[in-house]
């Protein structure tokens, strides 16, 4: 009976169903694309250099001087590799230095971030060369395409790196350019030089130390937990070490993601409130129009509670229908887009470039959001129906019956 009552004022039922369906579609779609974008963004932004977690000298984050190193780095790396949730770990030396190229007289010099990395264990996505190849062993360098352009250097050319060593002396090393990379981040491409960790350690006088052990977690979302677990299990080692997740290492990335996420939460919440109110309005109208009927039902012995339950069941059917339509459309649209992909358009192109994202996105259906929204909308519609249903308790049968005359 409740089901049939839905179809008395078809337009209103469909409006309610459409409202519920739209809210679900909007939120599920936004989350499905956003989650995918965020995960990609984070993986890219962290994978390029920092890793998901880093083991550093406790002071390094705030004061990245060459002397703030991690002692006995190779042993620490081995210990980290043993831990659960860790996919990879690699040693890094980091310093700022001047890079020169070109024959005498026509020399060009630029400042750059120098990174000593182990080509065997390194996981940074900048390993993918734009020209030439990644470093294979000591004596080679791999630099950003922008820096190569500035230096006017090509694969095979000699580069000289000049900086300050750990203990304050001059650090100098000559390397052959093996290849270049393009990360999509212009600043990075303009000012990064990677060379073999051994060359770095020798030139900068690291001994057995490193500036960081970069760690890749199984899942970027677990980075903070992995960092904390490492901190507890590996505490009390030879030297003080601080484990920092990408959230700590790149606070601006966290901010960016959070801002975007909150923006969509806010819009979603607004939409849900809006839909709930319009459903409430529809129910108030329906109850008002059916006063005579409810009066008759009460007269023949139906209790106000039973009438209210009938309305709640009507509301339930309505929301279930809305959920079915909303989830169905979301699944269909997202399912289709997950194979074809779609472009986010102009507004996002800059962001995509900044985080080295592909310009087509392939969203994955977000089951958690779909389930959560379905439950939320069912509850919201029940609440929306509850308010007008309360009027039934006060319904005066005699007056309701008189209304028909």
């Amino acid at each position: 009976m409740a089901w049939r009552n839905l179809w008395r004022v078809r337009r209103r039922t469909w409006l309610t169903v459409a409202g519920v369906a739209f809210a679900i579609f909007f939120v599920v779609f936004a989350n499905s694309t956003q989650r995918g974008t965020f995960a990609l963004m984070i993986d890219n932004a962290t994978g390029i250099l920092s890793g998901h977690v880093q083991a550093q000298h406790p002071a390094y984050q705030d004061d990245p001087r060459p002397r703030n190193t991690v002692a006995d780095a190779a042993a620490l790396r081995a210990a980290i590799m043993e831990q659960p949730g860790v996919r990879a770990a690699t040693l890094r030396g980091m310093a700022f230095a001047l890079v020169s190229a070109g024959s005498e007289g026509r020399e060009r010099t630029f400042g750059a971030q120098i990174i000593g990395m182990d080509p065997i264990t390194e996981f940074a996505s900048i390993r993918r060369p734009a020209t030439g190849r990644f470093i294979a062993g000591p004596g080679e360098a791999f630099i950003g395409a922008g820096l190569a352009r500035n230096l006017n250097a090509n694969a095979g050319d000699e580069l000289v790196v000049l900086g300050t060593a750990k203990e304050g002396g001059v650090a100098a090393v000559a390397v052959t350019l093996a290849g270049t990379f393009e990360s999509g981040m212009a600043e990075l491409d303009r000012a990064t030089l990677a060379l073999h960790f051994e060359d770095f350690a020798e030139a900068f006088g690291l001994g057995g130390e490193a500036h960081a052990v970069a760690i890749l977690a199984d899942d970027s979302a677990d980075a903070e937990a992995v960092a904390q677990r490492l901190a507890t299990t590996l505490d009390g080692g030879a030297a003080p070490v601080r484990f920092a997740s990408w959230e700590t290492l790149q606070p601006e990335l966290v901010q960016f993601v959070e801002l975007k996420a909150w923006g969509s939460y806010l819009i979603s919440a607004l939409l849900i409130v809006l839909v709930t109110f319009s459903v409430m309005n529809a129910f108030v109208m329906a109850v008002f129009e059916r006063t005579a009927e409810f009066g008759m039902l009460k007269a023949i012995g139906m209790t106000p509670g039973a009438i209210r339950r009938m309305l709640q069941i009507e509301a339930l059917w309505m929301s279930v229908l809305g959920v079915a339509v909303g989830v169905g459309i979301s699944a269909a649209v997202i399912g289709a887009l997950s194979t074809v992909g779609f472009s986010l358009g102009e507004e996002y192109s800059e962001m995509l470039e900044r985080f080295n994202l592909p310009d087509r996105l392939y969203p994955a259906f977000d089951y958690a959001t779909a389930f959560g929204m379905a439950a939320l909308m069912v509850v919201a519609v029940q609440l929306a129906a509850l308010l007008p249903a309360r009027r039934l308790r006060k319904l005066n049968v005699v007056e309701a019956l008189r209304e028909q005359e």
Partner: protein
Amino acid sequence: MSDLVVSCEGITRVYADDAVPVHALRGVDFEVRRGEWTSLAGPSGSGKSTLLHVIGGLDRPTNGEVNVDGQRLGGLSESQLSDLRLNKIGFVFQAYNLIPVLTAVENVEFIMQLQGVGAAERQTRARATLTRLGLDDIGDRRPGELSGGQQQRVAVARAVVTEPVLLLADEPSANLDSSTTQDLLELLRNVNEQHGVTIVTATHDPMVMDYAQRRVRLRDGAIEHDESSSGA
């Protein structure tokens, strides 16, 4: 059990919401014997509907006592009144008697569903009642597909399927022409005579009054005249 299905003593009903209180009933003493068909008559505003509502437990009198089938209504809570209406009283109103989304037979079943009667029994009893009242051919139609007279007759079926002690009908023929009124009245007579259902109707319609065995005329909220056709 007493032979009186309804007994009212000193019923007054005053509507005090407005500035000037309206005395809809001013001290009505009224009894209905089991098996009797009584028709309330009187000019508009004389208090017919109000008296019917008070007897049916839809409205509470300002003063006085109402007993239905030996139960004192003044002592009952809202939900007990609701139970009484469900189990002992059948109602037929002027209009809007039926649930529009249910078929005739489902409307008749609905009241038994409220009583908690099982689905199979509901079905057989509803069908049987419609058949008995000559309405079996329209059982599967919805109210919108029925004429006014057919709707009223289904309402009677709905009202009597629970075997109530009392059937109250307020202007049941107001929206009907004379030939469909005739059909409805024949049906009520059948229900009254064959099944012994006590009936109280409130109406302006002389045809309805003719069918009733007893006519009670109200004026200004008081009984002016009480006449039985058998005694006349």
